[in-house]
């Protein structure tokens, strides 16, 4: 009983690690042009406009991982940055969608949109412009 519980815990931790380690890709509308990693960071930290960044749910695993990999910042820092932008009236934070499917859908519908999803979730409706690691 104890042993099976321990086995379950180990499996769960490994699974979590697996999920955490899943690759994220930045995607755009298939009609859109390519985009660099620096551009992505600027876009998601409110430093530049032009394209429409689409976010995932704040605090979700993919959200945390994306900001870590794309901008090098943790959640609190990202929040502070967008708080400041918001407070000083210089912009609005990216719209948050509940899951990768919604993101894909929104991007497929908007040639100016940029988003990020798990690599495994990519399909023909979107174009991968930048794999993150």
């Amino acid at each position, binding site marked *: 009983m104890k042993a099976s519980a321990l086995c379950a815990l180990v499996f769960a931790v490994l699974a979590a690690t697996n999920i955490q380690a899943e690759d994220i890709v930045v995607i755009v509308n298939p009609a859109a042009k390519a985009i660099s990693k620096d551009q992505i960071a600027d876009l998601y930290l409110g430093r530049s406009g032009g394209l429409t960044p689409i976010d995932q749910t704040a605090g979700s695993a993919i959200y945390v991982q994306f900001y870590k990999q794309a901008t090098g910042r943790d959640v609190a820092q990202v*929040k502070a940055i967008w*708080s400041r932008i*918001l*407070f000083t009236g210089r912009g609005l934070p990216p719209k948050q969608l509940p899951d990768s499917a919604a993101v894909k859908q929104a991007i497929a519908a908007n040639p100016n949109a940029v988003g990020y999803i798990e690599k495994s979730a990519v399909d023909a409706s979107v174009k991968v412009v930048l794999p993150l690691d």
Partner: protein
Amino acid sequence: MTAQSLKETLHRRVSRIAEPQILFPLIAVVLLAATWGATLGLIRIKHAEAEHDAATVSHELLGTYEAQVVRVLHEIDQTLNLVKFWHERAGMHGTLAELKDRGLLPPDLVFSVGIADRHGTILESTRPLGAVSVADRDYFRDQRDGDSIRVGHLPRGATGDGRVPFTRRLNAANGDFDGAVIVAVDASFFVSGYDASKLGEHGVLGVLGTDGIFRVRRSGDSMFSGDAINYSSLLPKPDELDADPPVSLSSWDGVRRWSSAREIYGFPLAILVGLAQDEQLAAVERNSAVYLWRAAAGSLAIVVFTALLGRMSWQLAQSRLRESDSKLAHAQRVEYLAYHDGLTGLPNRSMFSKLLSQRISEARRYHRELAVAFLDLDRFKQINDTLGHEAGDQLLQEVATRLHGCVRDSDTVARLGGDEFVVLLPELEDGKLAATVAQKILGVIGKPFTLIGHEFRVTASIGISVYPQDGQDEQTLTKNADIAMYQAKTEGKNNFQFYSEQLNANSLERLTLESSLRHALERDEFRLYYQAKRDIRSGCIAGMEALLRWEHPDLGTVTPMQFIPVAEETGLIVPIGKWVLKMACLQSVAWQNEGLPPFGIAVNMTERQFLDESLLQDLASILQSTGMNPQLLELELTESLLIHDVENTLRILTGLKSLGVRIAVDDFGTGYSSLATLQRFPLDTVKIDRSFIGDLVGPSEDSGLADAIITMGKSLSLTVIVQGVETKEQADFLRAHACDELQGFYFNRPLPANQFAQLMRAQTANITYVGTRAGLQNQQP
């Protein structure tokens, strides 16, 4: 104080400032004061600028912050009203979801929206609000009784993720209380605009309620909520709105800040901006420190520089002082030399003149007498010549010491030059007392001196003049003492004389003599007189002596005794002597040519004439030019002159003898010469001085001495002549003692040439004896 003296005082002060020990410290103080004044002034100005800047920045930041906060609050209120509207209208669940779908709610990032029912239970929310019920919260309860926006607050402490709730009342259809809309905003959101580049680490940015409770405040990265402050004291008074905010101590954290606060219109909130004094002034404090260091370095440089200058100036002043000291010492030395005699250290003539003038003034004031005693050493020249100058100097020094030793301290002994000394006796009740002193001086001078191993005796002649009777001023007294001294000399030396008017007359005469003697030859004022020498047996004229007379146009006939010393002294004796020789020879030759018998003619010679280099040459030429027989010419020389320098005398006498002239010793017996010395000289005649025949009659010492001298002359095979025979008794005595010839008033007084010629002619005409006493007496004065 007059204007003049005020000016002088001022001038003295100003020139005192110019002295180095005042000037350089003064310059240093002025420079230091200027340096520090400028530095401190600059610091104060920079400080004031920084304070003004800080206040201005604080004010500007407040304006910006206000605009941002107001916009956010309006957005919040808009959301509250929107939700209220939808909920009251729809009155069902799902309001928030629908609004969110439509994008009408503010971003989830910092905003959470919820709805509570009338019991305070949360019906729905965009995100969990942290509590199931808000029934006990003020911001909810207050909505029961009012219809305005309420703002809750966090518990006191670090803000963290805490949210500030904003509420508005929900009404039921009938207007009853039906719950509240809540918008919870991250407290940190309100201070997310904190700009460390402007506010620093200790500035403050905050939102607080009109209740005085901070909703959030931020300094650096620290955020606090829930602490209460005195709200009213924070806001500026209405009349100070435009003024710079003053620095005040922030009560919540004890930091001194320029703080500005402003109420937000329409909300129970106010905002606060503060700049920390230490941070805002840090730059200026750093600069101030730099300025102070520079000023300190500058001060050090000033002090060192002025110290160096001062030292150099001091050294300069010292060297000037030394220079002036040495100049002074030199001047004193020069003055000493100017007023003292180098040999004896006694005051000299200049000093004596000054002292005498001074003493005369004193004597005049106190009605005293004073005496000036002139002293001249007798025979000093002789000592100098025979023993040398060193001995002479030594003698003068010894005399100075002795003189000094025998007068009182108040008396002055001075040396006027040569062997002339003067003693000033300034304190005399009676001028005659000077005689005592003079006698004493003669006594001490008369004691033997030992010079270069030989014992010597010298004598002195002293002349005394007394103030006030002999003169009222320094020159007169000095001159009269001098005259008295000359008198003492003529009185036979080794004595002292007081000045008298008579002496003065004589002296004047002497002065006149001296000047007119110089012209006597060219004006042909000299005459020769002739005195007969008579044979002691026959009484006949055996020869003659030529005697010089001076027919002065004003003074009449001047005797040789009066002018010969002057002529000797001035050197005029040499030309005069030549004239005498020539005239005597011419006269003798003339008489012979007249047919008168060839009588011998004697001419006196003085020391100076005798020692004259060209004597032999001159004599030879005179003999030749006149055709005079040298055998008839007899030169008379005094005994003392002959024995002065025996070798030299011998040389000259030999030269004279070679010309064929005869040599006579005048004043024989007075020079104490030894027989042996006399024997060496080629002499022809001795003349015995009248002093030996003064009292010949009777068995006296004189008669014995005269006898001895005559005998001596005879034994040397010399013609013996006795001169100065004035009485018959004397003539008789001498005749008895086998003297050869006689000369004197008893026989003939000196006569001019023509009268003497008559005398000779008479004798030649066989008038054998004219020397009757009666006849001669007629010719006496």
